[in-house]
């Protein structure tokens, strides 16, 4: 992970001092609500339904065991004993007191963490593939590029008061989109073309009220010009983005209104002035940034599928099942990445208690070079586990309740905190997730169904990414009652694709029966080897619509 240098730490300390003073002035009445609003938002602090919500930045999802323990300590001392992994790999606390937030930020700064630009109309935390650096399919490690972007974006003086929030994601895997770059304000695809590294730059993707997949604006931006090109896009957006209507203020609306051609022309005009200027990167600088990322001390003598693993796979059926769902291949021979699914029935997806933070930290120390990762699917990954240690690790995970072998299966749902916590929500999402988990509790059946992405959002803001779920569930409010609209065919796996609405929305108690009917249709109609999404794409929405609204079932 990125190793802090003294100036990184000093910057955090100065930020804490600044926010401490801003909070004091707000509480003294020297700053109005309106004036304090963007200041607290750019420190990750929302005022939510019952209390403030603090969103802590986790760059590239990477956490050291020291950081995990601090997150647990904050949950214990300043919250109600738990925290939530968000779909942008950040950590959220739902119950801090406003007065305590400067102290929480100071505690985070002690372990090189912060809440900088995790909300507000600025450039948010840069994200990438949660398996960055260990994914055998990536053409290079995207994280140094992410960090170059992060440092450009952090306290960028020109782009702190944008029309709306702005999210950038970077992907280094060809033919797949694990970072969901297609649905980000800017998506950066690292490409190698003719021996040269460059970036295909997309702009104007996003979920929320008007979901769309981004347009290619820069087909191949040579690597030295990455920041100049991003700056050009941001300047166009800052000058011309809609500021009158917050629902039309995202860059996707600007790209759509101007058309990709015109937007590209404006970007190219800005870029022409910036190109070859002081933002141009040098090979040495990129190498230095690569050097700031530590590499685990892998044992080079290890090989894949060691005897200890083969033996455990042959002798333990439960371990075998878990291995095939929750263990991911690693680029380093003899190692594997292990996903702990945080989807316990009856708990909000992505929630971790303070004790669980400590337990994960201990496991990271023992099995994974003292590091762990958060994922956009709201799980935790131990990224660098020796394959001959998978069985002992599994035994410990099983005892802790983290070995549910349901990664990517129907019950490994993504859900926002919903109406139980969030003041923006139109409807609850956690009870819906729980009802689905209770209904689909037969592990053999779930494995037979295979991977199905179910995503639940409590409102149009789409924090649960419902548009890109194979089955998306959106909470809507109609005259004070909660209903749920279902979309099908969204994708956030190999490609980014926006799902299609099934039809009129359902009562809360209809959601589970409808999903069961959709799944039944898939089981009846699937061809050998077909996943739910494949069958859907082959048949189209009509038969699913018919089945969902059929009354004789």
């Amino acid at each position: 992970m990125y190793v802090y240098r003294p100036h990184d730490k000093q910057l955090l300390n100065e930020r804490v001092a600044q926010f401490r003073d801003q909070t004091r002035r707000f509480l003294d009445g020297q700053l109005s609500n309106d004036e304090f609003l963007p200041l607290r938002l750019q420190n990750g602090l929302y005022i939510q339904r019952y209390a403030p919500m603090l969103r802590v930045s986790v760059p590239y999802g990477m956490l050291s065991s020291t950081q995990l323990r601090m997150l647990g300590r904050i949950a214990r001392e300043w919250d109600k004993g738990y925290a939530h992994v968000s779909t942008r790999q950040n950590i959220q606390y739902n119950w801090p007191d406003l007065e305590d937030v400067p102290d929480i930020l100071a505690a985070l700064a002690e372990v090189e963490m912060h809440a900088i630009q995790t909300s507000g109309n600025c450039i948010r935390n840069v994200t990438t593939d949660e398996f960055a650096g260990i994914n055998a399919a990536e053409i290079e490690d995207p994280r140094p590029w992410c960090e170059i972007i992060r440092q450009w974006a952090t306290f960028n003086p020109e782009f702190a008061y944008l029309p709306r929030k702005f999210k950038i994601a970077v992907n280094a895997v060809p033919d797949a989109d694990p970072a969901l770059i297609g649905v980000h304000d800017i998506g950066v695809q690292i490409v190698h073309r003719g021996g040269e590294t460059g970036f295909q730059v997309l702009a104007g993707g996003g979920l929320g009220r008007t979901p769309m997949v981004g347009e290619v604006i820069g087909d191949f931006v040579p690597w030295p010009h990455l920041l100049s090109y991003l700056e050009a896009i941001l300047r166009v957006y800052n000058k011309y983005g809609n500021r009158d209507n917050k629902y039309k203020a995202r860059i996707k609306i600007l790209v759509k209104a101007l058309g990709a051609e015109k937007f590209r022309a404006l970007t190219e005009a800005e870029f022409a002035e910036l190109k070859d200027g002081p933002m141009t990167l040098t090979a040495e600088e990129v190498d230095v940034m690569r050097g700031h990322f530590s590499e685990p001390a892998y044992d080079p003598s290890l090989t894949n599928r060691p005897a200890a693993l083969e033996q455990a796979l042959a002798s333990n059926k439960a371990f075998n099942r878990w291995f095939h769902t929750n263990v991911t291949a690693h680029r380093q021979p003899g190692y594997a990445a292990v996903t702990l699914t945080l989807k316990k029935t009856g708990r909000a997806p992505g929630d971790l208690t303070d004790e669980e933070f400590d337990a994960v930290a201990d496991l990271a120390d023992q099995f994974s070079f003292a590091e762990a990762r958060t994922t956009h699917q709201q799980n935790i990954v131990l990224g660098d586990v020796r394959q001959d240690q998978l069985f002992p690790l599994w035994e410990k995970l099983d005892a802790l309740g983290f070995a549910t072998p349901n990664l990517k299966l129907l019950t490994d749902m993504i859900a926002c905190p919903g109406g139980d916590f969030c003041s923006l929500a139109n409807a609850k999402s956690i009870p819906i997730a729980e009802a689905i988990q209770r209904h689909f509790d037969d592990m053999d059946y779930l494995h037979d169904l295979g991977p199905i992405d179910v995503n639940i959002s409590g409102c149009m803001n789409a924090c649960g990414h419902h548009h890109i779920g194979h089955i998306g569930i959106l909470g809507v409010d109609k005259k004070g009652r909660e209903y749920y609209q279902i979309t099908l065919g969204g994708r956030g796996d190999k490609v980014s694709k926006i799902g299609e609405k099934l039809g009129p929305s359902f009562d809360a108690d209809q959601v589970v029966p409808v999903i069961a009917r959709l799944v039944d249709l898939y089981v009846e109609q699937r061809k050998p080897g077909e996943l739910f999404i494949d069958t859907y794409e082959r048949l189209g929405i009509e038969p699913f619509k018919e089945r969902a609204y059929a009354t004789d079932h």
Partner: protein
Amino acid sequence: MPQIIKDGAIVEDRWQWLDAEALAAQQALPEGAVIVPLAYWQAHRDSLKARGDVAVCLEPGEEPVALADDLADLPMVAIHFPAFKDGRGYSYARELRTRYGFKGEIRALGDVLRDQLFYLQRVGFNAFVIRADRDIHDALNGLKDFSVTYQGDVHDPRPIYRRH
């Protein structure tokens, strides 16, 4: 005389800012240093240039390109923030400094508050008329919030990894 923050210090200020409405209420442009709207400048450019003590205020949506040919004759460009959350003026100031090489004063007018000053000075503003209901001495502290910056700015275009 009113006080403003200029070049990092609190100073007395002689400039009078007339927006379109204030200007319409006047018989003629008053004597002394005066800041006028872009439209007024464009309508009376030649006579105003001769005076030498006339500056132009850009509103959100009025880009520096409109002044590209006039900058050599302008002692100051003011940028109005009707609301501090409207960040267009940040890009305008940056363009004035880096694209057009404008060396004169860039002044922030309107909803100008302590907690935005650090960023405003980095994109090229060097003068700030702090909102009347706020303590200008308190606002001055806002220029010094950080000693560390990652990216370059109009004062030093080098990113931190190039400043040795």
